[in-house]
């Protein structure tokens, strides 16, 4: 069936919203898209435009519906085939916003097989596509971490922070040096991402580093850096590394003496009580 005919199953706004929608017709269209394979997928992506440059409500709806419907237990073959077809369109000449939309669908249905195709955009600052790429890879899971490591080595500007955060999301203990290095950066948010990364990997050997940095920071930086110290202490408690947790709680208790930080002192007191 002609792709444009298939897409007609999806609604156009009726009084601004998609109130007139035929479930069975849409489900049938999804099955037709899956059966149509990579040719149909590419034809649908061809009908998607940069926002404001064309009418594409139906193809966007259809592509997303299919990305969703190929997920779930027992559908692995269909999901892999659809994700592969979708990722193949990322090499075509298209506006970055369209590729961003495709990547967001891969966030829903993609697998490690699509990692390389998505990772090409991790360092690309145009149209926030690096964020979409990072979020898709993070959703796909820890197997994508090598893409973040490679990209971080060459990333500049806004993508660098996003990639560093991605390494933290994926709890990459091999990025310990990158997290430590980030703490020396002049930009507060990069420093915080470094501290957060060390907390995420529960790095017991960096307890002193986190505590020292939390004291160097002021204002928002101090609030967040201290929070990461306390979260690290809880992680260390959970893994039985009580010495590290005790060091954090004792330090917080000793150093947070201002009236507006007494909640930190109390939190440290509770932590110490748990360790007894």
């Amino acid at each position, binding site marked *: 069936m002609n792709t444009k005919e298939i897409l007609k199953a999806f609604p156009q706004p009726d009084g*601004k919203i998609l109130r007139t929608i035929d479930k069975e017709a849409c489900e049938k269209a999804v099955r037709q898209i899956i059966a149509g394979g990579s040719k149909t997928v590419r034809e649908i992506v061809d009908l998607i435009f940069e926002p404001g440059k064309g*009418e594409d409500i139906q193809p966007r709806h259809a592509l997303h519906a299919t990305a969703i419907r190929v997920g779930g237990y027992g559908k692995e073959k269909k999901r892999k085939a659809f994700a592969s077809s979708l990722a193949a369109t990322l090499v075509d000449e298209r506006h970055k916003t369209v590729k961003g939309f495709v990547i967001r*669908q891969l*966030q829903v249905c993609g697998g490690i097989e699509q990692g390389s195709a998505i990772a090409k955009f991790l360092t690309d600052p145009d149209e926030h596509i690096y964020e979409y790429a990072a*979020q898709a890879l993070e959703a796909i899971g820890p197997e994508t971490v090598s893409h973040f490591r490679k990209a971080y080595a060459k990333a500049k500007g806004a993508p660098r922070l996003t990639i560093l955060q991605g390494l933290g999301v994926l709890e990459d203990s091999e990025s310990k040096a990158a997290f430590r290095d980030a703490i020396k950066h002049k930009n507060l948010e990069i420093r915080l991402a470094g501290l957060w990364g060390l907390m995420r990997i529960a790095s017991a050997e960096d307890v002193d580093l986190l505590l020292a940095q939390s004291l160097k920071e002021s204002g928002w930086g101090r609030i967040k850096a201290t*929070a990461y110290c306390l979260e690290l202490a809880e992680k260390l408690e959970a893994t039985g590394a009580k010495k590290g947790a005790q060091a954090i709680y004792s330090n917080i208790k000793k150093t947070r003496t201002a009236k507006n930080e007494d*909640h930190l002192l*109390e939190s440290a007191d*509770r932590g110490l009580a748990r360790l007894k």
Partner: protein
Amino acid sequence: MKKIPSTQTRRSFLAKSATGATAATILPRHVFGAPHVPPSEKFGTALIGCGGRGPGTYSQLTKGLDVELVGACDVDLNRAQRFSQARSKGKAEVYQDFRELLERKDLDLVAIATPPHWHASISIASAEAGMDVLCEKPMTRFVAEGRAVVNAFERYGRVFQIGTFGRFNRSKDKGSVLKHKIMASGLLKNCEAVRMKKGGLKVKQWSGTPGIPPQTVPEQLDWDLYCGPSPWKPFESRRTTGTHRGYWDYEGGGMCDMGQHHFDPEQWTYGKDHTSPVEITPFAPPSHPEVTGMWAWVELKYADGFKFVMESGEWGPAYDKSPVRDVSLDDLSKKDQEKIKAMPDPEPLLSFGEAVKQRKQAGGHPEAAHRAACILHLANLAIRLGRKLNYDPDKEVFVNDEEANRFLNPPMSAPWRV
């Protein structure tokens, strides 16, 4: 605030119970050597998110407390200025970025009335800065955020109250208290009750409009900060000012707008404040990637067999899987009925103001608010995914559905993270 003629601080903590659940117990400040603070203190307050629900949420924050507004914050500076003018004749400082507001040393209580995609990050940051929080419903935008809020308020011993209050009246209603006791007793092993919420979830009202071309960002609005933890999208005005409810990036349609009002009291009544459904079955057409849309019904079944059903009444067929029926003493043996009658009534729920003064847990505490928000999130995910979902309420993950799990904790845009 630090205007009290005292060297004492009002800040005290809420303790974590031995079971790990958030407890209603108070461990006063003097346990750790500091003197008790009388409840006559004046509190420094702020509102973050000054449009729409903002003024109403702020009023809830201040009920029964002696307060002074010290800050008004909104990504739209005009709104923050208007609120400061209206409530403090312009004395309260105006902020566009909540991070700067939370650095204030004279701030004790924060009302949060931003769109929901900001609720968790700002609630957590407020607790980290030592503040008590009253946060507009729905509590969060997705499941993992809620758990992070619960953990943060336990960590810092702060008071949190969700901005819905139906459970307070429920907890005083005799019939509801009886049902609460039956369900909380654990005596009802195979519960056949089905509670239906038909209509009232504003499906069409809060459906989004797809395909609107990007517009110029108004000068007074920090659009990047508005997007914050959600995926960045080009500005168009319907993504803000109330109609944000129709976009998955910020809320979850009428389900999330109204659901916490409807299901928070139900959750209390039926003793589900510390758990979530295990099976979620939807009837809905494929959803759009950006905007919320139509659905017919969702059935949410708990481990004990109890079911909540929501029926939109605005699209599709009516729910017909199970007959609607309530819980009653007749569901129990005579012996168990006597046990229920002998049970003491549950402790009264504390208002936010009382909880702040007494340093106890508020009635709409983080765990309860999170579990109520989960009802809506799980229902919405079933609608979006179009399939039956099996959920583990302890681990808070879907069972055997890796793609569905991606929606429980979607990655945030840097530098935002919970």
